[in-house]
């Protein structure tokens, strides 16, 4: 395939120019700034577009910048035109008879991907064998400085082209993947040497540490749970113990009181129980429960008042009579008190005094008889009279006091008799009360009489509540029914038996007075036990607080764990990706070497043979793309490329470029463009290279852009197609002579 023509409109400094090209070598020559590079860049600009659209836009011209080219081979012609500004492309393919076979017109943007672009590139691939601009430039374009200076550059260029990229070296990519992989992990199955742990292993270790700490924390959580259970049990136990203790204290107080009451008046032990049974109100509705509570409270009020719900008709009279009797008794009692005081105040004459006086008088009489017996008679009469007088006075006084005492005693006896009568009446009333089931004590009667006024209201309210509860079909609670409290159950004659049975129960079921000290001791032990449990509870709460603090600190562990997990997942994925990439690329390089390298060797060898005029017939490409050349007729003996001359290396460069291009584009002979590529070569190398290019130009069209006068001379001499740009370089005398001599020959022929 050759480039037949290139037409430029408003393209750089080209206003409207069309250049024709021929087979073989074409030399575009001109001085600097003549437009050689612009012309050369116009070819990929037409084929692939131009990202920098201002680059070729002419100054002060409004026309669209556009270019077109025609490529042809033996089967078809391809005309491609592109408006650089709008990227409108027209591709027309016609056969050798210029019959149009394919016409593609579309906007093919450079930066965007669209169906039109894909179709266009597909057509380029089909007709030219290449659709990648970078590959096009890398293979078919040889610029100034691109000529390899040593064998290593040829090897690298070969590797990159065969990798499928313009400059992406598969070996370097493989190495970079391996480096990155080994930066992540030391787990490299393709690497024999051991390396130190990398980031992945470090993260894994850190995560293992976190797991260990997590396990420790879980154990701590279990400990906290156990502690919480212990604390709960302990709190429950302490609450129960406290309740038991309070009950015990209450019970002890109650039972002591009961025993004291029993011992004091021998009466029934209790009018209430220490612990009322719990009502079963929790299951009913709140209103019903409230009614039942009110009912119970009213009944308790009645019980506390000692009144039954139903009061007998005789009750007020009995209470009034009892009250009257009690008042009478009190009055009689008050009457007896001064009488008894009077009796106690009565003073009888003392007999001792009168006996002493009598004895003294007898003594006086005896003395008189001893001293003066003659006065015995008169003295006896006198003393007898005195004694009779004294004793008569004593008898008078005694009789009088005695009569007063008798009168008082008679009065007291009359009062006592009255009291006895009143008491008997009161006893009868008590019997009547007890027959109704009431307490007959004076205090109870007074209390009942006082409560009797509110009784009517209470009874009325109780009747209402019972009616409501009966309407709700709820059993009316009867206080004392469950608790068998003797004070409430006593509406009937069963009261006594109930009281007696309760007393028996107390004696049988409750503690006896001699057991009370033991009970008090037990209570004290219970109190100590509660204190011990409270100390233990405090210790457990402290332990729990410490563990809770540690668990709070462990929440940060969760954050760290999440970060490490995320990092580990990312690294694992990266490891897998890099591992897969490394394996695939290594295998692909090996597979490509095994399957394609021999074909490449053959292709390069063919070009090399052509370029060196058969001096070198074969080339050997090793797996690392090292090149060894074999001379003709020296089978089995090859020379490394780096050991050969620079001229030979240049030829190998040209041969490999063209061979690889042809290999990559599926056997198409595409034009080869050189932009001042040979300008740095000395004369010998230049001639040698040009000779090789001439030989290669039999298959490939060669288009050289240069300002080198040496090439221009050669072009004249060797009849290349010359396209001058700008001012033609001045010819040297040698060139003029050569031209004249050539013309002379032609003229002589004419």
């Amino acid at each position: 395939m050759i480039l037949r023509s290139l037409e430029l409109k408003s393209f750089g400094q080209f206003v409207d120019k069309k250049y024709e090209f021929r087979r073989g070598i074409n030399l575009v020559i001109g001085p600097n700034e003549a437009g050689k590079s612009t012309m050369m860049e116009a070819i990929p600009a037409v084929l692939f577009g131009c990202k920098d659209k201002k680059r070729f836009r002419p100054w002060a011209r409004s026309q669209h910048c556009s270019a077109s080219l025609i490529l042809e081979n033996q089967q078809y012609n391809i005309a491609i035109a592109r408006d650089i500004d709008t990227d409108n492309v027209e591709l027309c393919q016609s056969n050798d008879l210029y019959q149009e076979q394919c016409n593609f017109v579309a906007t093919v943007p450079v930066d965007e991907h669209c169906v039109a672009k894909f179709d266009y590139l597909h057509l380029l691939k089909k007709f030219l064998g290449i659709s990648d601009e970078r590959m096009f430039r890398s293979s078919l374009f040889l610029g100034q400085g691109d000529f390899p200076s040593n064998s290593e550059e040829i090897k690298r260029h070969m590797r990159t082209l065969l990798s499928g990229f313009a400059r992406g070296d598969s070996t370097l990519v493989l190495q970079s993947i391996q480096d990155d992989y080994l930066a992540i992990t030391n787990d490299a199955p393709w690497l024999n040497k051991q390396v130190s742990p990398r980031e992945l292993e470090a993260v894994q270790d850190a995560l293992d540490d976190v797991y260990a700490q997590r396990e420790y924390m879980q154990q701590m959580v279990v400990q906290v749970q156990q502690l919480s259970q212990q604390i709960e049990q302990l709190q429950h136990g302490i609450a129960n113990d406290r309740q038991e203790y309070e009950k015990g204290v209450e019970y002890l107080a109650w039972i002591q009181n009961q025993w004291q009451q029993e011992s004091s008046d021998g009466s029934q032990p209790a009018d209430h129980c220490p612990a009322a049974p719990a009502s079963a109100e929790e299951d009913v509705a709140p209103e019903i429960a409230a009614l039942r509570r009110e009912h119970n409270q009213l009944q308790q009020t009645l019980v506390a008042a000692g009144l039954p719900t139903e009061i007998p008709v005789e009750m007020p009279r009995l209470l009034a009579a009892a009250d009257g009797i009690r008042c009478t008794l009190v009055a009689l009692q008050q009457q007896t008190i001064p009488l008894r005081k009077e009796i106690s105040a009565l003073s009888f004459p003392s007999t001792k005094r009168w006996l002493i006086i009598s004895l003294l008088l007898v003594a006086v009489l005896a003395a008189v008889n001893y001293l003066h017996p003659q006065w015995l008679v008169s003295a006896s009469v006198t003393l007898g009279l005195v004694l009779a007088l004294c004793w008569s006075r004593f008898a008078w006084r005694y009789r009088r006091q005695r009569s007063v005492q008798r009168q008082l005693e008679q009065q007291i006896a009359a009062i006592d008799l009255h009291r006895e009568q009143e008491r008997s009446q009161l006893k009868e009333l008590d019997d009547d009360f007890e027959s109704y089931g009431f307490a007959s004590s004076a205090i109870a009667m007074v209390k009942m009489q006082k409560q009797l006024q509110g009784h009517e209201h209470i009874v009325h309210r109780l009747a209402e509540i019972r009616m409501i509860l009966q309407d709700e079909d709820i059993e009316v609670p009867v206080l004392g029914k469950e608790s068998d409290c003797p004070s409430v159950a006593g509406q009937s004659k069963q009261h006594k038996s109930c009281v007696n049975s309760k007393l028996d129960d107390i004696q049988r079921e409750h503690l006896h007075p001699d057991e009370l000290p033991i009970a008090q001791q037990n209570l004290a032990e219970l109190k100590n036990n509660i204190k011990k449990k409270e100390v233990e509870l405090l210790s457990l709460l402290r332990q729990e607080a410490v563990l809770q603090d540690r668990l709070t600190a462990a929440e940060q562990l969760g954050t760290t764990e999440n970060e490490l997990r995320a990092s580990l997942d990312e690294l694992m994925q990266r490891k897998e990706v890099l591992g897969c990439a490394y394996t695939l690329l290594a295998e692909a390089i090996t597979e490509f070497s095994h399957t394609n390298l021999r074909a490449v060797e053959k292709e390069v060898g063919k070009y090399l043979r052509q370029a060196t005029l058969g001096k070198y017939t074969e080339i050997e490409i090793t797996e690392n793309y090292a090149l060894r050349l074999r001379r003709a007729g020296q089978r089995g003996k090859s020379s490394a490329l780096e050991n050969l001359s620079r001229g030979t290396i240049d030829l190998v460069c040209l041969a490999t470029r063209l061979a690889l291009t042809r290999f990559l584009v599926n056997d198409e002979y595409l034009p080869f463009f050189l932009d001042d590529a040979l300008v740095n070569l000395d004369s010998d190398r230049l001639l040698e290279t040009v000779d090789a290019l001439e030989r290669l130009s039999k298959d490939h069209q060669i288009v050289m852009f240069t300002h080198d006068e040496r090439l221009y001379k050669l072009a004249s001499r060797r009849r290349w197609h010359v396209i001058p740009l700008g001012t033609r370089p001045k010819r040297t005398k040698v060139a003029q002579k050569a031209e004249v001599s050539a013309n002379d020959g032609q003229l002589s022929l004419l």
Partner: protein
Amino acid sequence: MSHSNTTQDDQYQSYELNVSHCVDESAICAEVALLAQSDLSIKITLVGNIDIDIIPDTKNITNCCRESFFALELVDHTSLLESVFVREMAQENTVRGVVVKRLLELSKATTNAAQLRIYELTLRELLARFEVMQGGDYS
């Protein structure tokens, strides 16, 4: 624009956005911006077949569109393996052609989504490295 499989999890509303037709990253940003609601917490999964030149950079797109959402999370599940570009590449007589051909064979042989994702990322990794080596603008 084609959206599908809108689901709701605890924190995010999940959304699948097919970006096969998008020609560049700004087009993907525009597609994402169409869903913008200031009170929306959304997790957008980008799906579809893409070309190598428009492999979405989720960080860039998230930074571009974050202000339009209450919370935005982008997940790239686009496929380069299924693109025409890669299928064309597999026919090349080059090392990369062999690599891509093998990757396509491997991806067809497996139904494991995680493994498919690994192959997808492997392809991207390789192409990116070759592009970086040759000074391309793909990163």
